[in-house]
């Protein structure tokens, strides 16, 4: 379905654990997925599932006590085994990141224009004048008004929506091939969120950047992503096109998650709730990680560990009985 | 992480050693502190007198030991006065805010602007010298800094939702201030108390050095420093020993305070 030269990022058997004085904790236990050019891939999951850690590992932004195993192939080169110098060249240039909280991810003491300029300084050969013009153009591209004045403002002088646009401007400054967006609209009002999602879709369409979009909000994933991975307790439990995932999910966790969201159909009734809670990072489970909470569980699920396997074309699941759903 | 605990350990070792010295002094000193011996005046440290003797032939070690009681006593009571009033004042100012806060803190600012030793001097010259007034003066001097630390904790916490929760459940303000918020803001106050202890000891030493604190024949490390100045060329140990003791107790409490603060930071 996808040709070899269309592949941008290929993650295989990613495992990330953290070394602490009280022991080693696995945050990501087995993650594999591919992102192609011009593609928008979503990673969805609840807190503690490992989605943020996964995204940080792509840019090698994990803290020093993190141990990262597996391969992260970007355009053929394994980021996991790359030297620091080479990765710094990639960061901001070929791969960039948009964070959730623009107030803390922007430098409060620098003018916002300067922060975009900094990215261009590091990765392009433009001179000062050229960069200034480029920054203004980028700011216009992300829908910011009155760019000449705005260039000289500080982050705290801007609204949340505008700050996030600056964050996006910094991310797209060098026309990256891949943008990692970690919950970029979670902290924004719903009307501003709608604007930002439109902007990201536009960037994907006109500038061709692929996007990895991380969120806990299934609605947002549905809105913007073409393909999605569902994560639970450090594993990807289902991967499919957005259409197929919502139409016919093939993992009990995904099914439970979808049913938990209030819709018009659920008004006046009880919401489906997945009993129990997410396993803690220290729990070691022999069988399927979701088994304790699964309404469809069978004896096999507690004893054997399910591997990630294809059910349908472009639809993979980590459930033994996925084919039955 | 282990490196940071060194402050704490050093502080604990020093203070505990001095405490042991103090406790022992209640039951036993090698010589009586007032026993004078003309023959043995200014004798250097020896096996008979580990720290030598002073200008009256009194055993310096024994006087140092009893002096430790003064040091700890002064520190404890002065800091207690400062804590008691300072925390209450700071809590009320921080929690209620408004003109109460402005009024109280202007008074605290005035107190802080006034040089501490000068205040103690004035107090002692009006109310008389001696250990009781020394402690009261030092205690009063320390109120503003405790008030300030407490107040900032309360200003922060009164906006937290657990406080709003308590108010909305009908809990009385006094109970909120002392039962609900205090346990959450006490950490920096404890660090300040430890530092305050050493500062109280230093102040007492200064006052006694000036002759206004503890009066003869009661031993105080500060006064010993004072008395030994004249004889420093013939009996240097007389000055050195109390100087070292003051340094030790101040360092001890400072290390302890640092160590406690590091512990709290680590926990965060």
């Amino acid at each position, binding site marked *: 379905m996808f040709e070899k030269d269309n592949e941008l990022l290929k993650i295989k058997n990613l495992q990330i654990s953290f070394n602490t004085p009280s022991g080693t904790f696995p945050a990501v236990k087995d993650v594999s997925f591919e992102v192609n050019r011009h593609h928008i891939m979503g990673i969805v999951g609840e*807190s503690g599932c490992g989605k943020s850690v996964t995204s940080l590992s792509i840019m090698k932004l994990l803290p020093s006590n993190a141990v990262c195993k597996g391969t992260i192939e970007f355009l053929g080169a394994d980021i996991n085994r790359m030297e620091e110098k080479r990765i710094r060249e990639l960061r901001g240039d070929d791969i960039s990141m948009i964070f959730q909280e623009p107030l803390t991810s922007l430098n409060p003491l620098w003018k916002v224009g300067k922060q975009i300029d900094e990215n261009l300084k590091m990765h392009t050969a433009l001179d000062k004048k050229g960069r200034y013009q480029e920054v203004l153009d980028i700011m216009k591209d992300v829908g910011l008004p009155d760019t000449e004045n705005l260039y000289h403002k500080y982050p705290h002088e801007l609204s949340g929506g505008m700050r996030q646009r600056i964050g996006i401007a910094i991310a797209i400054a060098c026309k990256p091939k891949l943008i990692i967006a970690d919950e970029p609209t979670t902290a924004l009002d*719903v009307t*501003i969120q709608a604007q930002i999602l439109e902007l990201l879709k536009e960037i994907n369409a006109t500038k061709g950047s692929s996007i990895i979009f991380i969120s806990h909000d299934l*609605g947002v994933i549905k809105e913007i992503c073409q393909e999605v991975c569902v994560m639970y307790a450090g594993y990807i439990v289902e991967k499919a096109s957005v259409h197929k995932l919502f139409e016919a999910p093939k993992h009990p966790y995904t099914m439970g998650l979808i049913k938990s969201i*209030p819709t018009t159909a659920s008004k006046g009734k009880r919401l489906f709730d997945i009993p129990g809670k*997410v396993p803690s990072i220290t729990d070691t489970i022999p069988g399927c990680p979701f088994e304790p909470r699964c309404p469809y569980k069978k004896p096999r699920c507690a004893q054997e560990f399910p591997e990630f396997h294809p059910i349908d074309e472009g639809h993979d699941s980590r459930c033994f009985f996925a084919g039955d759903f | 992480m282990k490196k940071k605990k060194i402050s704490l350990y050093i502080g604990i070792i020093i203070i505990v050693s001095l405490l042991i010295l103090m406790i022992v002094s209640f039951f036993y000193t090698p010589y009586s502190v007032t026993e004078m011996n003309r023959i043995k005046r200014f004798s250097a440290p020896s096996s008979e007198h580990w720290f030598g003797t002073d200008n009256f032939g009194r055993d310096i070690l024994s006087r140092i030991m009893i002096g430790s009681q003064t040091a700890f006593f002064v520190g404890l009571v002065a800091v207690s006065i400062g804590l008691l009033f300072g925390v209450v004042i700071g809590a009320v100012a921080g929690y209620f805010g408004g003109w109460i806060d402005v009024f109280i803190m202007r008074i605290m600012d005035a107190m802080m602007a006034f040089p501490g030793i000068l205040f103690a001097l004035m107090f002692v010259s009006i109310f008389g010298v001696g250990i009781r007034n020394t402690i009261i003066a030092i205690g009063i001097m320390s109120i503003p800094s405790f008030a300030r630390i407490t107040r900032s904790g309360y200003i922060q916490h009164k906006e937290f939702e657990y406080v709003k929760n308590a*108010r909305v*459940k009908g809990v009385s303000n006094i109970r909120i201030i002392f039962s*609900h918020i205090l*346990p959450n803001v006490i950490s920096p106050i404890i660090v300040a108390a430890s530092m305050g202890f050493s500062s109280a000891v230093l102040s007492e030493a200064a006052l006694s050095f000036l002759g206004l604190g503890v009066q003869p024949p009661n031993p105080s490390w500060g006064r010993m420093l004072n008395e030994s100045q004249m004889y420093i060329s013939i009996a240097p140990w007389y000055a050195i020993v109390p100087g070292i003791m003051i340094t030790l107790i101040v360092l001890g409490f400072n290390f302890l305070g640092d160590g406690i603060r590091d512990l709290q930071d680590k926990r965060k």
Partner: protein
Amino acid sequence: MKEKILEVINLKKHYTLKRTKLFVKPGAVKALNGIDFSIYKGETFGLVGESGCGKSTAGHTIIRLLDPTEGKILFKGQDITTLKGKELKEIRSDIQIIFQDTTGALNPKKTIEWILNEPLIAHGIGKAERTKIILENIGLVGLDESYLKRYPHELSGGQRQRIGILSALILRPDFIIADEPVSALDVSVQAQILNLMNDLQDKLGLTYLFISHDLNVVHFFCDRIAVMYLGEIMELADAENLYRKTYHPYTQSLISAIPGENEFMEERILLKGDAPNPLNPPSGCFFHPRCFKKMPVCEKIKPEKIEIEKDHFVCCHLYGKER
């Protein structure tokens, strides 16, 4: 005629800023700029809006954590607007509040048991009685005795919210204000808590004022909903009508902004520009700078509240007399 449990009349909450210039009167942040609504016994009333709209301020003011600048609050017919001291404490056993921030809402240095005891102590209940009440009620929120000796940080977000709900219920109030109670929770936990709140409403005959920014949740949970913008109510109707027969342009853009497959609106309306600054609200209708149906009159005159259909109110010149 249904019984009214709460009536809010022209409620205003203004924060005056510090005076910076000697002869210039300081400005004010008009967090609440005159809201009116009533809540009937047994219903769930929703207050929805984006950040800065004043919905949390409304909740805090109604429960008298804040003092209103103007207006009236009538609870069960009694005017509680200016109550103080003992009288205020008495109504605390009738109206309670659940907060959003589950980590901050419980005292981090105290055990769950201590936290649950406090409201009872404040109302003069003796030790034996308190223990009995706590043990009897802990099951109400789906927890058991073993949680009593724990500290808040040992509990998950969902469990902490259950304790938050229990501490609000323990005085057996009739009316509960829920200020974004599920916004900080994962989707699956959110479902559990919403189910719990529904069950409790049936079991205990509660009335809810439900404050949230999540349009899906509000539609699901509430009977009637008011949409707020910059301290004012733009539209008020029952849930179905508000979402399907939307009149106010702001409400329309709000509902169309719901991401994913939007069940209520097909067209996505994208608002231009930014959220307004509460320090410097626009003239006339607060929404006019961003309104896609703006008319000249909107800049000058504030629209009045109109009942456009039975029990469906709108504040918009499009439907007013001055068209």
